[in-house]
């Protein structure tokens, strides 16, 4: 099946944040918004940007950056959410299989089987997953964008585009076949270069084996706060390719050992039992 992706064109985006609101609304992440009624009011921290960070209930947020190249101010808008990598650090480290690659390529998430280990937080080169422990139950869970595939709220299976894409008024977000969106992104980058944006680039085409959220940028990714050439840390690779297999081997050996122990013990018990039975008879 053809891989799907989102193309975000930062040059079309006006940071209206329809996507941010739609994400919360569709994914029912609104119940924790602080209000006057429950005692806390969200506050302005000297910026249009709010809430201040991604969180278990904020899977997508728009970032606002003021930069002054050549002394002239620019106000740059950037979409911050899961990038749905092909080489996904989070999937590599997830011990329970809660994070996995959807058949359409992006990184889906089954919250029910998340053990709350938090490894994915450290493994993500984009600092996206957010982790929270319920102080009453003591249960910890991670949260992040599921590409609108959360069970019960699955737009993709329903044949729809993700909620953020659906709501985007200036069509800065597009959803479709990844190959086609790569071609569209390249076309847009060429148009930007022709207009004089010589640093324009398509971010996410090749990064980490190909992201499933790609960015049309008119300037260097670093200007937009995106990591240049993001990598999964050696520890993460070691985790999946070395430590985890060792873990399985060790775990397997342990099970085998336990099994052997059981068989030996059972044989002994049986022998004892036979002796007793023999003595009785």
């Amino acid at each position, binding site marked *: 099946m053809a891989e799907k992706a989102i193309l975000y064109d930062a040059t079309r985006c006006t940071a209206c944040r329809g996507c941010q609101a739609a994400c919360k609304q569709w994914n029912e992440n609104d119940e924790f*918004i602080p209000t006057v009624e429950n005692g806390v009011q969200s506050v302005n921290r000297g910026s249009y940007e709010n809430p201040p960070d991604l969180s278990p209930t904020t899977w997508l947020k728009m970032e606002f950056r003021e930069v002054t190249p050549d002394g002239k101010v620019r106000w740059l808008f950037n979409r911050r959410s899961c990038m749905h990598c092909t080489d996904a650090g989070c999937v590599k480290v997830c011990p329970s299989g809660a994070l996995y690659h959807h058949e359409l390529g992006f990184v889906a998430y089954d919250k029910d089987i998340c053990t709350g280990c938090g490894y994915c937080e450290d493994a993500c080169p984009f600092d996206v997953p957010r982790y929270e422990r319920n102080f009453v139950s003591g249960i910890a869970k991670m949260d992040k964008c599921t590409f609108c595939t959360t069970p019960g709220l699955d737009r993709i299976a329903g044949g729809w585009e993700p909620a953020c894409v659906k709501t985007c008024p200036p069509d800065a977000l597009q959803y479709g076949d990844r190959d086609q969106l790569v071609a569209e992104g390249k076309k847009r980058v060429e148009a930007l270069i022709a207009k004089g944006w010589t640093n324009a680039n398509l971010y996410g085409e090749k990064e980490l084996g190909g992201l499933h959220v790609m960015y049309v940028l008119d300037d260097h990714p670093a200007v937009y706060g995106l990591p240049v050439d993001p990598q999964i840390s050696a520890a993460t690779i070691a985790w999946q390719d070395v430590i985890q297999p060792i873990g399985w081997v060790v775990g397997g050996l342990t099970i085998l050992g336990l099994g052997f122990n059981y068989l030996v013990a059972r044989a002994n018990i049986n022998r004892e039992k036979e002796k007793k039975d023999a003595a009785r008879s």
Partner: protein
Amino acid sequence: MTNHWNDIANADVIMAIGSNPAENHPAAFGHITDAKERGAQLISVDPRFTRTSAKADIYSPLRSGTDIAFIDGMIKYVLDDIDHNPGNYNMSYIKEYTNAAYLINPGYKGPADLDGLFSGYAGGLNETDGNKRKYDKSSWQFQLDEKGIPKRDMTLQDPNCVFQIMKRHFARYTPEKVNEITGAPVDTFLQICQTYATSGQVGKAGTILYAMGTTQHTYGAQNIRSYCILQLLLGNIGIAGGGINAMRGESNVQGSTDHCLLFHILPGYLKVPDDTDDTLDKYLERVTPKSNDPKSANWWQHTPKYMVSLLKAWYGNAATRDNQFGFHYLPKIETGKNYSHISLFEAMYSGVIKGMMCWGQNPAVGGPNANLERLALGELDWLVVTDIWHTETANFWQRPGVNKADIKTEVFLLPALNSFEKEGSVTNSGRWSQWRYAAAAGPGVAMGDLWMLDWLARKLMEMYANEGGPNAEAITQLNWNYGHEHPDVHAVAKEINGYDLTTGKLLPSFTKLMDDGTTSSGNWLYCASYTEDGNMAARRDPTPGPFNIGLYPNWSWCWPVNRRIIYNRASVDLNGEPWDKNHPVIWWQGDKWVGDVPDGGWPPMAVDPENTKYPFIMKPEGHARFFGPGMAEGPLPEHYEPWESPIKNPMSPQQSNPAFKIWRPDEQGTPDKYPIVCSTYRLCEHWQGGQMTRNMPWLIEMQPEPFVEMSEELAAKIGIVNGEKVIVESTRGQVYLTAVITKRFKPFQMNGTTVHQVGIPWHWGFTGLSTGDSANKLTPHVGDANTMIPEYKAFLVNIRKV
């Protein structure tokens, strides 16, 4: 809008000035983005670097309240360039379609001769006597020939011709002067002039997108006049991708204005009767313009047909020729008296007005000088608020710092349906009337405005019939019949369209309206919107239509007579050939017009000089007005400072607009105590007075509280850091806000003078989930000299650390 939203995509240059569409018209901004992707240049002119500026090719700052100086400077650039490169401009358009060639009364003198005033002023410089703050406009009039037709000099050389008067008037707005007034850097200003002037070439189009940043000044109407002059000089009116385009701040402002939201008009922009109009004939004589020029269509000559048809819609069989079709039932305003927002609240404050019905608006947040307006509400005997939430207006008696027991006003709150819970039409900025259906049922006992009005009217009719009262027949004789328990919105829409009263059939067009009582129409402009062929506003055919320029003629319906681009007969040359053959609006082919509905079907001017008409059919003389002799403060836009200004007017000794009404001279702030310019504006995440959005958790999380935006330089001067609380104060009040310190505001460098400006979003108040101080506690009770729209956009404040 002269044009419409989709048409913006046809522009080659777009100038957003006095507007911030990326912030306030986020969905419509897509049309601008489309134009940009087709190669259009976007220019953003704004006191601060906005979301729109972030998407613009060129940005220039300008100090709030200095649009006229900026645009007059651009006009000077174009006039100078026409001298050197006439081939880059459409001189035929200028000569044939505008009043550039008209001769003006030789007694006319302009601000260059009269220290910033025009001839005919009753008072002296900086006049304070309200009775003398006005003009005798006789010296501004056109010279007429023996037939009573305006005289023209087609060579444009006569010193009394408009073109030469313009050259003298605008010559004073040099780039250096523009910088001294506006703070726009000279090089950026010239880059904008150069870029925008390219739209003057035949076949190119430039559009101006404006909003409340333009209008909300004591000279707001003149700001728009300056845009008109620039657009006419560049041949940008009537063409695809051109026009003067007011982006409305609410989905149906255009519709409510068309149906006479304002006090000075009746539906369809008919003039309101005043107390000199003893009879219908006298009224029609006063308001119907005349022209002796056979080539002028002078469309308003049809006023009697529209007025009589309106009276027939309102009074039905009770409107007869013998009783002047019920004209005597209509209320008449006191001649020359203003009944707009500020005047009404002053009248409440002084106890003249005893009761108010407040429908879907929140003046306790949105009105200027909000502290004063909240006090005025407390002077009322009764107040009815119709809204979908408890608003600050409904709850004014519970506001902080007030003893409820001191307020005697009886307040009623009628729970209303919101716009998605009822069926009806919504007219957008581009004049498209689009029919909508109820998407959801309303909560509890909430009812639509139509239901409330219908019941109120029927109850009043019953009471007047039983108990009598002053001018009782004005109510009892109403032709009011929209159904029983639930009024039928289609019956209203059909009444607005109008009927042939002889056959009982819906009329196909306003050209069928008569002044003999045989037709009715609730609004002549909407005649053709609901015909025997059905509800035109409900049409949904997405075909782009003629010449593929995105007219979408069968999508919804557009006034007048489904004409998508008005003044479109200026989009062709004298032979009816489009100036821009790639984007033709209309085209004379064979013996008929093809394309958009033409502004009158007469043949082109050179094809049939006997039977043709000039293209600007709504002006009695048929030509677009560079020189506008009807304006309150002068026929050409002249720079004056806002009522509260940080500097002396660099242009002339006349400090502010000499013709607006000063309500409260004692409340004028001065720069020694209030040195900082302040403006108010909206945010993408909130809506108007905040009734709807300040109760929406997702939105208040994104923009949780009001703030004041300021430059790093000003913050350093005050000694505050980002996110710190400050008090902003004017002579009218003070507000407690979070400081947002930004690189997007810069102090204005005006030829050696530095001026600081700040801005505050005005959505907040003391009710709802998200509360905060209302910016309008700071704004003054002064308004435009022509329209009285309040000066929300430029006033003086001081800021201090808490």
